[in-house]
């Protein structure tokens, strides 16, 4: 009898292993401990999941009941958050909101049913631990077949490693917010601008920025990062193999603390098939910008038997992550030169900055416009794509991801909007994203909540509506209601805004085909809207996913509470 049961169990296990389906419950064990790691000047003590950076790739199946035991072997509290996963809020892993964290020596068991498919990731949500190395990919196989074919499937997880602890970085910024900016305007750039634009224009430009006490070189808060792909530096060159003609799926995940990337594979077009885990109608691009915590799945089809470089420049151009797609191990493709560091223009500052003298602003705008005009001659204006793609049958009021300011004022152009490296090349913009399937319960939002994204660069803290998380009341939503969040970025930084537990339906004017996202990037000076179906009860985190922006106050608690409203949404068709 016993033998019989044993045999049956073995058979079942075998079937499970062979088919890879029918796994409707599985257990995963993760251990968090300190570890020594480094990429440049020796190693330092850092934090890792299962002794590796990134942590192991978690492979789930849609419909599966997962049990994840997370053991904390450090002497400080920790947590793991499943980024983009729909689950009960108590399993979301945010200390102070969903639970009280994982104490030293304890094991916390997460339990939830997988209700979605696609590419996601997970990371610590305690303090600044994420940057230390506490992040890893999640791949969820759909219950039904994928709507596209591919022969190979690789995770390409981008991240930023620092030789400094994140706490030290934040300390430096609190005391000197320019600490990491070694690309500031100097006497040299002044004379260069005078020779190019004339003395009057240069003085006006300097006066406009000086008046605001801001600098166009403020592209990123932190420098000194080493950029990694799947935990490998550019020199270590992570390599994915292919046979010519094969379709290769790359799951791009930006697991960085603070870094945006412009990603391209010279010689290959990328077909974007998924954004933030959700299938989108395929978009063929040469290049894409991936904000912190976003994911994009792309399919490439290298036909030639040669290595192709996956090249991911950081937005501030202080470095790049690089990996290779190659027919054989040990090969290395050509590495392009870094493009020049972008500079903010007055268009990026928006036209509604508080406390600004409009006279000074106009002068600056004029100077900025001159400059932008000149650049157009040499490079493809990044706005074109956005504008064109977005124009197709959508109203003027809803064009996220584009240069609203630039569009309103002819001649004014964003300095940091992505531009293709390849002449005439196509860069992905939000206007291109169209959901694969329509959202069944699409309807007009019941109400709108406007959120001004604010901050104080000089003192280095960030906020929403001028209020830091520590001083803020929670945002309260009624279960079943549909709320439009409109983000108005009044700062000079881009902010990747992330909502836990529920989708944000990014308004690209495509109504029921608006893409579902867990992170939306709001560029400086711009406004964009998302509709949130409040379909998950409980307390959720909502924040900017730039680690130091979240930590210094750009965060809110969102509470979804009863009573149940009439129109309860159920999700996809």
């Amino acid at each position, binding site marked *: 009898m016993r033998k019989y049961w044993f045999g049956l169990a073995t058979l079942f296990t075998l079937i499970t292993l062979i088919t890879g389906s029918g796994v409707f419950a599985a257990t995963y064990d993760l251990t968090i401990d300190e570890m020594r790691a480094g990429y440049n000047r020796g190693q330092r003590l850092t934090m890792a999941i299962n002794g590796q950076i990134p942590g192991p790739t978690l492979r789930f199946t849609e419909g599966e009941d997962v049990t994840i035991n997370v053991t904390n072997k450090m002497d400080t509290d920790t947590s793991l958050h499943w980024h983009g996963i729909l689950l009960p809020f108590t399993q979301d892993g945010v200390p102070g909101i969903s639970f009280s964290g994982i104490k030293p020596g304890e094991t916390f068991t997460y339990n939830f049913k997988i209700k979605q498919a696609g590419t996601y990731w997970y990371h610590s949500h305690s303090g600044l631990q994420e940057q230390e190395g506490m992040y890893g990919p999640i791949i969820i196989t759909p219950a039904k077949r994928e709507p596209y074919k591919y022969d190979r499937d690789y995770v390409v997880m981008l991240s930023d490693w620092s030789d400094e602890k994140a706490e030290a970085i934040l*300390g*430096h910024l*609190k*005391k*000197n917010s320019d*600490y990491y900016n*070694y*690309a*500031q*305007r*100097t*006497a*040299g750039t002044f004379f260069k601008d005078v020779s190019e634009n004339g003395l009057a224009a240069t003085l006006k430009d300097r*006066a406009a920025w*000086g*008046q*605001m*006490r801001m600098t166009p070189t403020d592209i990123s808060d932190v420098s000194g990062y080493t950029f990694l792909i799947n935990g490998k530096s550019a020199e270590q060159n992570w390599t994915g193999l292919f046979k010519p003609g094969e379709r290769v799926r790359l799951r791009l995940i930006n697991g960085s603390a603070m870094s945006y990337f412009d990603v391209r594979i010279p010689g290959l077009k990328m077909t974007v098939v998924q954004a933030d885990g959700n299938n989108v109608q395929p978009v063929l691009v040469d290049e894409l910008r991936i904000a912190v915590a976003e994911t994009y799945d792309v399919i490439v089809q290298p036909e030639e038997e040669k290595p192709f470089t996956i090249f991911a420049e950081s937005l501030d151009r202080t470095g790049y992550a690089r990996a290779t797609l190659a027919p054989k191990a040990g090969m290395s493709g050509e590495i392009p030169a870094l493009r020049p560091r972008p500079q903010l223009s007055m268009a990026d500052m928006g036209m509604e900055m508080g*406390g600004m003298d409009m006279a000074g602003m106009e002068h600056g705008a004029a100077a900025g416009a001159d400059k932008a005009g000149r650049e157009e001659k040499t490079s493809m204006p990044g706005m074109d794509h956005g504008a064109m793609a977005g124009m197709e049958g959508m109203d003027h009021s809803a064009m996220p991801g584009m240069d609203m300011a630039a569009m309103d004022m002819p001649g004014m152009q964003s300095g940091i909007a992505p531009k293709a490296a390849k002449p005439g090349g196509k860069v992905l913009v939000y206007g291109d994203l169209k959901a694969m399937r329509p959202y069944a319960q699409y309807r007009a939002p019941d109400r709108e909540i406007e959120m001004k994204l604010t901050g*104080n660069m*000089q*003192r280095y*803290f960030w906020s929403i509506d001028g209020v*830091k*998380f*520590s001083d803020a009341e929670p945002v309260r939503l009624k279960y079943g209601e549909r709320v439009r969040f409109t983000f108005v970025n009044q700062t000079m930084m881009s902010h990747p805004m992330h909502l836990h537990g529920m989708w944000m339906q990014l308004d690209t004017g495509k109504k029921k085909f608006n893409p579902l996202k867990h992170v939306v990037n709001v560029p400086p000076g711009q406004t964009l809207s998302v509709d949130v179906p409040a379909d998950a009860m409980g307390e959720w985190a909502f924040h900017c996913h730039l680690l130091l922006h979240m930590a*210094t*106050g750009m965060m809110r608690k969102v509470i979804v509470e009863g009573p149940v409203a009439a129109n309860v949404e159920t999700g996809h068709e």
Partner: protein
Amino acid sequence: MNRYCAAIFLMFCTLTSRVSAMEEHEPNYIFFQAEQFEYRNQEGRDSLKWDAQGWYGGDYNKLWLKTEGEKPAGDKVEKAEIQALLSHMVTDFFDVQAGLRYDPEPNPRRSYAVLGLQGLAPYYFETDAALFLSNKGDLSARFTAEYELLLTQKLILQPAMEINLAAQDVKALGIGAGVTDIELGLRLRYEIRREFAPYVGVNWERKLGQTADLARRDGEDTEIPSLVAGIRLWF
């Protein structure tokens, strides 16, 4: 007068406890910066000059300490002042500061109540304006401004100015009513690290008006140009 000082002290202690209580959710930071720590080569007697500030606190409230002074070579400290201020953010770029100042040197020693406004003015001028009311009831004021001109990312030219004013004569301290003195400096530093920068420069002090008259009467210089070399550091 003692009761007056005691009252300020009490207010100070109350506010100090508020600094630590108000921002419990986020960590407080400690900052110290020796803006000037330099040797001054000048006519007559060379001297050592320091000007340092530091704070403890969060984004909105800080406990701020400031000290400056001068010690002639081979002699005891000639001028020294220490300020302990509570600092509260009032605009994005400015803090209001209030507290106490004590000058151990010169004699006769004085204590002051301080009310000031410190921050970054438009066009990136670091400014500090303060009113001082001494324990003898004398009112004075000081205004300082600095600018940083980046020659390269690490080579930085810093013009600085300071003006002192007095509302009345304070003969015991050699101060006459009006603008008492002005100081201009130009320092060129090289940031080996952000936190550590050796510098060289020039400095020019000038006593003015009745203060200058008093100095002349006592046979002191009214004008002190100097060459300076020092280290700017912070942590």
